[in-house]
């Protein structure tokens, strides 16, 4: 994480949006400025005994000085969502930000917003902003079942049929290629959802011949194609064997084991934390956006801050040539 200024805050209220998504209203100790759509809040959490940080997108601009986030309880998480779900109103929190890595550019000829599951949170803020600006946009929102839809009713009340809902249980799937084809030249797409959806969107966007910078997304590196599981990393050059627990990243595990690593974004964007793969006897779950699909397919390297291995271990080489 980048150096952060922490600010005390109070959990003002919580509300269940779905059986496993909770809305949290966070009131900072000093009145905070509104945040542009796409912004996220850093929240200090405890994972067991260990302090850590999680980022949650704001669902609106917080113009009233209250930050609203929606947190889904993930059985498979590294522990942040369980902590957030355990908080009671009145709880003291430490927050940082808001920051924005997912800024909305106004003035485009059209917008496609695509949300999958809890990915609705930043797109909720964007839809409200675009609606207020009178911009042409569609928000396509996919969820498993009707009861998994968070914020859909209130959104519908505000943006009407610009919101279109797609439910797995009704066998309705988003036609990404069709939605992209309908966009005016120069339009942008903003997407937030599970890894597979993001990948499909990137592919459809590229196949439509649209400029890559027009497809906007944000990566927290929290989801991959496979559920996280522990795995072993072998570094023959250093004669080391390191266990990566389920709730830790490979980068964290390597650093904890004293392996010198450099990194910056910790979101799978910058490519600084990469290592060379010598051999993978498991499947590498590439969760980064730094490598291209072609590069991921060759399995020559991986981003240790987000990517993992399932069904086996991995043998790597690091930059250390001291020995």
């Amino acid at each position, binding site marked *: 994480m980048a150096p952060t200024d922490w600010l005390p805050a109070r959990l003002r209220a919580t509300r269940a949006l779905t059986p496993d998504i909770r809305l949290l209203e966070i009131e900072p100790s000093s009145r905070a400025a509104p945040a*542009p759509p796409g912004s996220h809040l850093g929240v200090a959490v405890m994972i067991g005994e260990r302090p850590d940080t999680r980022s949650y997108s704001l669902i609106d601009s917080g113009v*009233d000085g209250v930050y609203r986030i929606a947190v889904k309880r993930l059985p498979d998480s590294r522990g942040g969502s369980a902590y957030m779900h355990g908080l009671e109103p009145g709880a003291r929190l430490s927050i940082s930000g808001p920051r924005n890595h997912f800024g909305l*550019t106004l*003035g485009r000829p059209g917008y496609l917003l695509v949300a999958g599951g809890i990915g609705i949170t930043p797109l909720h803020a964007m839809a409200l902003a675009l609606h*207020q600006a009178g911009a042409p946009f569609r928000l396509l929102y996919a969820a498993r079942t009707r009861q998994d839809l968070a914020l859909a009713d209130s959104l519908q009340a505000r943006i009407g049929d610009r919101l279109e809902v797609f439910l797995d249980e009704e066998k309705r799937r988003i036609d990404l290629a069709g939605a992209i084809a309908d966009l005016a030249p120069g339009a942008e797409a903003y997407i937030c959802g599970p890894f597979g959806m993001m990948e499909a969107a990137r592919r459809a966007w590229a196949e439509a011949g649209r400029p*890559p*910078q027009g497809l906007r*997304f944000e*990566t927290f590196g929290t989801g991959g194609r496979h559920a996280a599981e522990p795995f072993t990393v072998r570094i023959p050059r250093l004669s080391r064997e390191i266990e990566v627990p389920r709730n830790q990243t490979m980068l964290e595990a390597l650093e904890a084991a004293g392996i010198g690593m450099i990194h910056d974004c910790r979101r799978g964007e910058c490519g600084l934390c990469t290592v060379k793969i010598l051999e993978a006897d498991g499947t590498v779950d590439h969760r980064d956006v730094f490598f291209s699909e072609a590069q991921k397919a060759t399995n020559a390297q991986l981003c240790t801050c987000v990517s993992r291995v399932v069904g086996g271990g991995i043998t790597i080489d690091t930059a250390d040539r001291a020995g």
Partner: protein
Amino acid sequence: MSDKGFPLNAWYAAAWDHEIGRALTPRRICDKDVVLYRRTDGAVAALEDACWHRLMPLSLGHLRGDQVMCGYHGLVFDATGRCTFMPAQETINPSACVRAFPAVERYRLIWLWMGDPALADPDLVPDFHWNSDAPWVGEGGTFYSLKCNYRLVIDNLMDLTHETYVHAGSIGDDAITRSPFEVTHTDTCVTVERWMENIEPPPFWARNLGKPGHHVDRWQIIRFEAPTVVAGDVGVAITGTGARQGDRSQGVNGFFLAAITPETATSCHYFWNFVRSWRTDDEELTKSLNRAHVNDGKGVYDQDHDVLEAQQRAIDRQPRQPFYNLNIDAGSLWAHRLIDGMIARESPSETRTSETKPVGVAAE
């Protein structure tokens, strides 16, 4: 007085339209470095002049079509500030971008919005139509990086008693300091109006009126539009011909125009013009008015320039806060009040304690 900063949610003049072409033009505005250029479709783009990667000024790079390539490691940004190329990798970091500032071309100037882009409504560009619309004719210029806080320029223009002293021999005249004036305001504008009736015209006006031997009625109607635009309706007409009642046919009428843009806390860009409605096709007169304003060392604006920079130097050396104020400062104090109101509305934490009306908390 001058340390309360400036509003960001406002349109500020950044350049004359003819100054911005295909060259990358750097400019510091409201303490932010900006690079300006004209896209191939003729529209003006304004980006943060600091590369996302290592802060290299983009203005030292190159234009490729409508995109700017950083001159250091070759990152490329489009006119909206999105990165479109990264060296030595097959993908682009999704968070790579530089800020793009909304730009509007109007009244012969390029105006930039330095605050929240969602609020950048072109209808909010200050009224500066005298700069571009008939019957007004004139050629101005800019003091870039004038070494004084922008509010000192506004003060200068909102109280023209200084003409008597600073501009003696051209437009200065004792009648100014003898005549009463009236200050009125709305939520966005302040007007200072002064009539000097039945006076000997000062040299500049006598020459341009060209009616030797006549007394005149002289007027100065100065309109400030928050945060930083001033347009002064000035002129003389032969006494008793009804100028004050609205008939200016027996006189000569001009507007001094000022769009002032904060550069830093202690410097600003001063876009000036003097437009007139007499002898409008006399290009020699246009040129000589332009020159007389700045270039011969005795120009009216040069005289102000010297005063303003000397004032800022004195403030820096021996700050005495606040200034003492006189009755003649009413116009500038109202202007400050409007500017401070804009600033307060932008920072929610201040609106709670502000003694002005409780604005902005739930403005939406």
